[in-house]
Structures are given as C-alpha cells and as structure tokens.
C-alpha cells in the first residue's frame, strides 16, 4: 500500500536538477508553494509552465509523477465537492436541495489546480533529492534557529534515522503480521472499528521491537564517538556552486513573473 506513494521517493537519474544543492531545491519548493497562493489564474499558467520545464530538466518521466498523484485523488475529490456545493453565491445549477454556484465552481477549480501543482512541485523535490541530502539541506537552512535553542542538528539526525528505519520496520510489520495470520489472526474482515482493533496485537510487538532497536542504535552511535552536533565535520559538506546561484536567480525571476502575471488581467 505504502509502496504506491511517489511523494518522498528518490528517482535515481543524473540531471541538472538532481545535482543542484538541496538548499536551492528546498527554497525553490517553498517559493513555488507561496506563489500558488499569491498569484491567481494567469499566475497558474506561469506556474504550470515553470513546473513542466523543471520536470523536463529533471529527466523524471511525467507519467511517474502523475502516478504518484493517485494517492491524493480521494482527498482532492472531497475538497472539490465540498467547495462546489457549499459555497454561497449566484446559483448556476440547482437540483433537489443541492445547488452549485458560480463562486463554487471558481473556488473548486482553483483548489484543484493549486493542490495538483503543489503536490507535483513538492514531489519533484523529493524525487530529485536523496533523503540524506534533504535532511542535510534542512539542517543547514535551519541553522539560524539554533539561536532560539532549537536543536537543529538533533532533529535532522532523527529525521535521517527515521528514514533509514522505515524499510526495516515495514519488513518487520510484514513478518509480525504473517506470524499472527499463521496463528489465526484476522486483519481483513469486519468493519473499520474491528479492523482497527485487530491492529493492536500487531502494533504492540512492533513498538517493543522499535524501542529495542532504538536502544541498540543509541549504543552503537555512542560507541562510534557520537556526541551531538558540536565539533562534527561532514563527509559530504554542502557547498554552493555557480549553478546553484543561477538556479536561485531563476526561481526568483519565476516568483516575480508569477505574481505580476496574476495581477495583470484581474
């Protein structure tokens, strides 16, 4: 089930986008998301063009990204339907107790476009950046927050450990599930509440094992001289190259264009 989600998966090819500094990609994604909420209509055309260019450059097949959208189709439908029927305004179509307003259509369309672009934009980032690079980038970008005593290094370390243990814990879940099924457990039938209840005997051993792993890992890290972020050097330090500077400028140019385009016609 979790295997179908493209969001957060790395697509290993070599491209200009892949080689960019993760900080550039993080900032660009943030600006892209902001631009979706600031610019309107014509702004979306600029955003779509920009996104398609980036996808083309990243060498990740468009089909692959679109397939990742399937996971959120349900949420999107939900949001669109609610907006269609529940927005007050001038009635466009009306039947039984339900009515669709022009404002509703407008809002629903805007929401759908925003959601699609937002998810595609952020999946481009995760598809072109290794999780390790991503956490490194986050750590560096958030470094100023250390002034207000936020343990940035520790949070980044926790994130990367969590990422490393996801496949291990999934495998373990599978094993426990099979062991329980072999002894007559039933995870399939019954209503939602019954299904949720049947997960308890699965979660308890999983948690116990996760704590044991955490304990082992902490000991292994201490044995390898881990003492927090202080005095630590990096095997792969993040260093900006000229391409990253160019990318920053292009992203800023896009951001300006998007806002200007959004104001032009309306």
């Amino acid at each position, binding site marked *: 089930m979790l295997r179908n989600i493209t969001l957060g998966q790395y697509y290993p090819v070599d491209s200009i986008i892949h080689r960019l500094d993760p900080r550039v990609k993080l900032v660009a994604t943030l600006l892209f998301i902001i631009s979706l909420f600031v610019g309107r209509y014509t702004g979306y055309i600029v955003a779509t063009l920009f996104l398609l260019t980036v996808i083309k450059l990243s060498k990740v097949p468009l089909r692959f990204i679109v397939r990742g959208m399937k996971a959120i189709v349900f949420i999107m439908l939900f949001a669109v339907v609610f907006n269609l029927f529940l927005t007050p305004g001038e009635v466009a179509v009306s039947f039984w107790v339900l009515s669709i307003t022009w404002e509703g259509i407008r809002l629903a369309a805007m929401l759908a476009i925003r959601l699609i672009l937002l998810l595609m934009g952020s999946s481009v980032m995760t598809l072109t950046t290794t*999780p390790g690079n991503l956490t490194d980038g986050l750590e560096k970008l958030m470094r100023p927050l250390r002034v207000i005593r936020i343990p940035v290094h520790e949070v980044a370390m926790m994130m990367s450990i969590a990422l490393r243990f996801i496949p291990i814990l999934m495998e373990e879940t599978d094993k426990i599930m099979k062991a329980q099924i072999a002894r007559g457990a039933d995870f399939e039938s019954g209503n939602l509440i019954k299904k949720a209840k049947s997960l308890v005997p699965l979660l308890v051993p999983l948690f116990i094992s996760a704590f044991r792993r955490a304990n082992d890992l902490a000991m292994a890290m201490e044995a*390898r001289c881990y003492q927090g972020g202080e*005095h630590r050097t990096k095997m792969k330090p993040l260093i900006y190259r000229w391409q990253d500077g160019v990318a920053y400028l292009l992203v800023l140019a896009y951001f300006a264009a998007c806002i200007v385009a959004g104001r032009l016609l309306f």
Partner: protein
Amino acid sequence: MAMGCVVDIIKTKDLVYEYIRRDEEGNVEGITRAVDEVDVAVRPGEFIAIVGHNGSGKSTLAKHINAICYPTEGSVFVDGKDTADEKHLWEIRRMAGMVFQNPDNQIIGQVVEEDVGFGPENMGIPTAQIWERVDESLSAVGMTAHRKKSPNRLSGGQKQRVSIAGVLAMRPKCIILDEPTAMLDPSGRKEVIRAVRALNDVEKITIVLITHYMDEAIFADRIFVMDKGRIAMTGTPRQIFHRVEELKQLRLDVPYVTLLAHKLRKSGVIKSDTTVLSIEELLDSLDIALPVKHESVGKSVNC
C-alpha cells in the same frame, strides 16, 4: 601497567560489574554480578576469543572495554588509560571500536559510504581525510563495490562488514566484536570471520571476538572461557579444546572434528595425545593413507 616491554592494550584489574534490579518503586530487588573479579590482559596484535554460554558475562565484559559500561569495582585500562576517567572517554571509544550483534541496529547512514564516514565525522576529521579513511576501510573489508548502495539492500554478512569498516575508519588499535555472526547464515559467518582474520593478520589490529561458535574460536591466539561472570579457563585453542569434559560441564561444545577425535582417542583408535582442530589433523593422526587429500578441507571447513 607495563608488562615486559609492551603495554597491554587491554587490561582489567579485579573487574566487577553488578546489575541492580529494581521494582516499580525503584527499590533494589536484587543484585546480579555479571562480571566477577576478572583479571585479563591482552597484548597488542593478539586475537582473543571469549566464549561462554548465555549469561556468562561475556558481552558485559566487552562493553567495559569500549567504556559503555563502567566497573562497579576494580578497573579497566585500554592502552594504559583508565576507562572510568571521563577525560579519556572519546579517546578510548576511538581506540577500541565495537561491532555489535544485530547488523541492522548499528548502521546509521543511508548509503554504505556515509555510514563508514559516521565515526570520522564525529571525531571532527577534515572532509578530505574522511574520504581517504572511508576508501581504505571499505577496501580492507572488500566492500568497495557496494559503497553507493543502501544498507537495506545488503546481505547480513555484507552489513556486518560495513559495520566493521565503520569502526575501522576511526583507526582503532583494537576491535571488539560482540557475537557479530550470531544472526548470520553460514556463508555470512564465513565472510565476516575472514574479514576479521585479515584485519588481524594484515593490519595487526588487536581483535576481541565474542562468540558462541567454537569453530570461530579456533582461529584465536588465546581463548578466554567465561562462566558465571568469571574467567573459567584461558589458553590457546589447542589447550582449551583438549579439556573436552570440563567444557561440557560449562555447557560448551567443542568443534565437531575435535569431539570426534576425542571419542576416537577414548576408544583407542587414535594413539597420539595432541588435540585435533581440523579435518587434516584428524586424518594425520588417524594415519590412514588416503588416495586424495583435498586441500580445501582445512580449518575453514565449518566457518
């Protein structure tokens, strides 16, 4: 601390370690002596195997060498430095690297080479030198070809070799391996033991191998047999495995060939009194002329 001309790399003096069991209110329920007055000395470059059945205190003893556990009584010296002294802590952990049992629970990096670089990163080594050390360590355990892979895609034996490389990158004087092969299949065990022996032979790194597989212990220079927290026997593999009956009382096995030779000796088939550690030695002592003697059946037959 000097014994003769060389300083012992590891030395324990009347080492005692007690686990204190507490009930839910925090009152002391009972005290278990995991390590009981252990006095051992390991010389630089030695290959030591510590054997003993579950709960004999062998893992607890190992954790003292890396300063993960501190002595309740007595003291532990690593390269002449007291592990109880806080200011030597990181120096000791660097010098005495530790490899644990579960390969999944000790790999931190998401890429093999990044994991090997974790130790040097923690030590504050400059970037260029980290790469040098990672390259060296990976090639020392024969994992260079897998350096870009995710650890999740490796076999158990390969994961343990990555763990060894991770320790090696800190340039330790001594490596302690706490049952590194317990969770591996036979071919994985073979891989790991081969890598460990190479480090001892080529890089002259002191090895302390904790194991309950006797056929791994035969490669050691000396074996410490532990029972109920005490050192019950010490000696070369040949001396130790000569005492088959005593080992049985400690609920320990001897290698299969050794046991066979022992039984044959008892029934009078074998006359000589030397302990047999490999199939070849068994054939020699049997004194039967065999048409072909396979070269591959040596010490490595089981492991």
